[in-house]
Every structure is written in C-alpha cells, then in structure tokens.
C-alpha cells in the first residue's frame, strides 16, 4: 500500500470511529459548559481565576519556604539530608501557560549552593558548574534565541544592593530596563525586567528575581528568553519558581 493510501486510511478510520460519539457529545457538552461558566462567574466577584488559584494553591507552595538548619556540623548535614528526603524526587506541578493549564512531570533539582526547585523534565535539563546552575532547553530548535533560568548566590550583597548593580549592567545592553520593584509572585523578591527592542519576536528579555538568603546574601535567579516566548518559557520559569525553596 502506498504512503498516501495508508495515510488516507488512517484519516478515514479516525473519522469513522469518532463520528457518533462526537455528535452525541455536542449538546450535552454545551449545556455543561454554560453551567460551568455561570457557576464560575457566580462563585467569586473576581471570576474563575481566583477559584483556580485556590485549587493551584493546594499543589504548589506560593512563597519561599526557608528551612533553618546549620550545614556546618555533622548533625546539621544529617538534618539537611533528612530535609532533602522530604522533597519527592519527582512530582506533578500545575503550570498555567498561555491561558492553558498543564500538569507537568517535574524533577527535583537540589543545588549545591543550598536550594531546591522542581523543573519540567520533559522540556528542560540542568547544567551545573558547582556555583551556578542553569535550567536550559532539552531540545532547542535550530537558530532559536537563548532560553534559560540561572540560579546562583552572592553571599555578601543584599538584594537591594545587587539590584542597583544589575540594573546598571542591564542598561548597557537593553533599551528598556524597568526600575527594581518588590514582588510577592511567584515569590517574595526584588524584581528587575529588561527588554531590548520590544517589537520583534526574537527581541531578548532578561528578568531577575533577587531573593534574600536571610544571611546578608542573595539568591540570584536570572531568566533569559525572548519576546515571543514570554508567555511560554517565561511562564514556565515563573511556575517553577513557585516551588523554589532555600535550605539555609
């Protein structure tokens, strides 16, 4: 059988075997959709989003959880190991990307610099060099602009001090740099956003989230992506950050 005939037969089989069920579902689905929309609109003044956020809240922690323990002693190291065991090696994390909800198979990343985060293991991998960890695309398309989320630590500078330095550095390469602000979503941090251009799909974007390590230093989260990917990779990185946890 030729490729064309086989392709045609696949199409015919899929159509014939879904004909009746699709027809039967149409009206009932519509009634349920109407009911669902009505219920969502009535359930809260702010609509469906707050309803979903409550559901999401069950699955993900909304803020950084700081686990206080010393890692300088043997007891401390044992305790750290226990804490690490508390985090499942893999779990499902709910992401919201471009209006769509996804349950994402996520893998635990335990950084040597003292943090844990869950990353989308189908799309990304972690490249470590001991001081800086980068979550990069597993399968980037050819010619695609750079996309990554980098995690590092500056043990000596507060988030506010670092923000001044990073903002000045960004101004050299980016046409628009927004002044640092404090944010609480996806976690408590000082946030800086920079974009070069802003009209072309591949215009680069850098976001910094600067998180206090509670010891006078800062965890630096740098996200690099591009305009077209703001709702895609940008949203995915922010979803990962909801589970970012510092092991102090």
């Amino acid at each position: 059988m030729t490729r064309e005939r086989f392709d045609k037969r696949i199409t015919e089989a899929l159509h014939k075997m879904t004909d009746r069920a699709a027809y039967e579902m149409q009206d009932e689905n519509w009634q349920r959709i109407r009911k669902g929309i009505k219920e969502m609109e009535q359930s809260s003044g702010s609509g469906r989003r707050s309803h979903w956020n409550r559901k999401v809240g069950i699955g993900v922690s909304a803020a950084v959880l700081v686990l206080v323990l010393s890692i300088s002693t043997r007891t401390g190291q044992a305790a750290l190991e226990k804490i690490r065991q508390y985090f499942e090696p893999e779990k499902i994390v709910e992401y919201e990307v471009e209006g769509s909800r996804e349950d994402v198979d996520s893998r635990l990343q335990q950084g040597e610099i003292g943090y844990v985060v869950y990353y989308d293991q189908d799309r990304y991998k972690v490249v470590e060099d001991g001081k800086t960890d980068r979550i990069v695309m597993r399968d980037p398309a050819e010619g695609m602009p750079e996309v990554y989320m980098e995690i590092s630590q500056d043990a000596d500078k507060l988030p506010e001090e670092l923000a001044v330095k990073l903002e000045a550095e960004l101004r050299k390469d980016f046409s628009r740099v927004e002044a640092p602000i404090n944010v609480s979503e996806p976690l408590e941090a000082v946030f800086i956003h920079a974009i070069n251009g802003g009209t072309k799909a591949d215009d680069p974007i850098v976001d910094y989230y600067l998180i206090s390590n509670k010891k006078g230093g800062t965890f630096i989260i740098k996200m690099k992506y591009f305009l077209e990917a703001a709702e895609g990779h940008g949203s995915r990185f922010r979803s990962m950050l909801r589970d970012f946890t510092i092991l102090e």
Partner: protein
Amino acid sequence: MDDILLKRIQNKDKQAFEELYQRYAGYAARVALAVTRSQALAADAVQETFIRVYFNIGKFKPGYPFEPWLYRILINECNRIMKRRSRVTYISDYQINQTDFAFEDHRPFEEYEELYRAIEGLNDKLRIPIVLKYLKGFKEKEIAEILSLNINTVKSRLYKGRQKLKKAIAGSKKERNPDDTGKI
C-alpha cells in the same frame, strides 16, 4: 476566527461564544476522544477546554491562528485528565452502529476498527501527533507549536507512529490469514 467574533467573545457576548463552540466543538470532541480513548474523559476535556477559552480569550493574540491555541489547551486538558483518572476504557464508548456503514462503504468496518484500535494502542507521545495530523489535518509545524516540540521531533514521532501502525495492521492481518505475506 474572525476579529469581530473574537472581540464579541472578549466582551463576554454569550451568543458569540456559542457560535465559536458550534464552529469548533465537533472536531475538538473527535480529537479528545481519540486522545483520551474514553467518551467520558473526552467530554470532560472538551468542557474544560471551552470554559478555559471563555475565561482566557483575552490571552489569545489577535492575528494569530486560533486553532493551534485552542488545540494546545485541549491537548493539555486531555493529558491532565488522563493523568488524574485511572485508565478505564468503556466498551460502550466505541459502540457504533455498524449497519450505518454497511451501505456507504465497501471497505469492511472491521478494518477501520482494527486500525483505530492500533492507533489507541500507540503511546501518548506517538498517538497525539498522529491524531492531530490525520484527524484534524494540522501541519507538522502547527503540531510542533501545539505540543511545544521541535518540528523534527514531531516528524520523527509521526514516522514512528506510522511504522507501528503498519506493523500492527500487518500482524492482525496475518493472524486472520496465516498465508498472508503481511504486506499492506
């Protein structure tokens, strides 16, 4: 989707939303059924998808094709629902009145059923691109966009999917007729 309909839906015009539903629900239901392999799960996925479309239509970028956006939501809902529920396939989901086809098609219904069962037997990674291409008619580039995959990965999965289907069909033909060479 035309810009006027889009604007009306963004302004929460329920009639416009119903127009959108009537336009896109048929194929969405077919695709959901072929992906989830259950009428009950497919119904849930389609309902959730259109509710999400209604509340998130503001995130859709005007000027872009609507269907890849819609199907990205649909496939994500299918995956989410399949992960959360146990895999139960109800025979009644696929009961079709075979006599309906007896007069309109000379090809034995059994062959379609066999091929459909083989598609159902593919793992999710291979089955979903096959369904999007052959049932909905999406191009490889669009499938890559819907599934957030590299286009070469999509091509490779479609190729592997087709090969597996050919093998499965050849195998069942041989079972029915041991003298068959298996060539299809």
